């Protein structure tokens, strides 16, 4: 999708998240993953690391080379999406205690992904 389409989706999901509370931690984590992935793709497209027709569905599906490039231009961005993804087995698909605290951490990572997308600029000079 184009950067603007990713923005539109991320913003729609974020608006709907207003209906969720910390106690709804499973969906807060899932919504952070969904919106965060759109911000992540927007950043990758803006950096010129991926094309709009090559969206990444999960950070762990990035190639090692792509992940290294992303680390060099935006350290911590892939790791932000990783933290959200790594919360899912324990607190969304699993019933490990601590879901509310995990959801709060995921919301922090979502804000980080949003900020990274807003700040992303093309790597290559025009």
């Amino acid at each position, binding site marked *: *999708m184009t950067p603007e*389409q990713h923005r*539109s*989706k991320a913003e*729609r*999901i974020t*608006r*709907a*998240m207003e*209906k*969720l509370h910390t106690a*709804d931690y*499973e*969906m807060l984590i*899932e*919504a952070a993953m*969904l919106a965060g*992935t759109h911000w992540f793709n927007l950043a990758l497209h803006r950096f010129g690391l991926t094309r709009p027709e090559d*969206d990444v*569905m*999960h950070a*762990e599906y990035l190639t090692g080379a792509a992940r290294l490039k992303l680390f060099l231009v935006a350290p911590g961005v892939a790791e932000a999406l990783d933290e959200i*993804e790594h919360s*899912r*087995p*324990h607190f*969304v*698909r*699993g*019933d*490990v205690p601590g879901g509310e605290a995990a959801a709060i951490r995921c919301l922090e990572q979502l804000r980080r992904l949003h900020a990274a997308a807003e700040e992303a600029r093309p790597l290559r000079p025009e």
Partner: protein
Amino acid sequence: MKIEAHVEKWRRFDALRARFDPGKEFELWYWTSLSGGTAIINAALHAAGLTDENGYLATQIPEVYVVMDGVDRWRHAIGFRCDLIHVGLPPVEAPLTQALQRAFAAMDVMEHYRDPCIRGDHPITAEVTMACDRAYAEIVAAARAALAERRP
């Protein structure tokens, strides 16, 4: 996870589903349906003896799980006959019961819309929301029927 834990997850997703407008908030309405549907299908698969109740928690990679290794220590492990992350991921090797065949078929309908409408920008029409709503109702009814046939 245990059957009861999956059913409790389904209850939580099902309650959240009612908060969202299927048209205006399709993404989260759909995702509560998908997640709740997957939870109750996992419960039904365990009940039918086709997958196992255990402490293996599903990651995004089929057949890779996280499992408790001592106190507060987690490790990744390969697992078989464990929870599904989506219908078909990983595939269930044994033949499905009739009720589970119905649940899987309905989940296939719902999954059809996942990437186009959530990851992509496929238009969210009344036909899409109605198809997902019908599929969810069928998943829940079929999975409950499978749970009612639970093997001792």
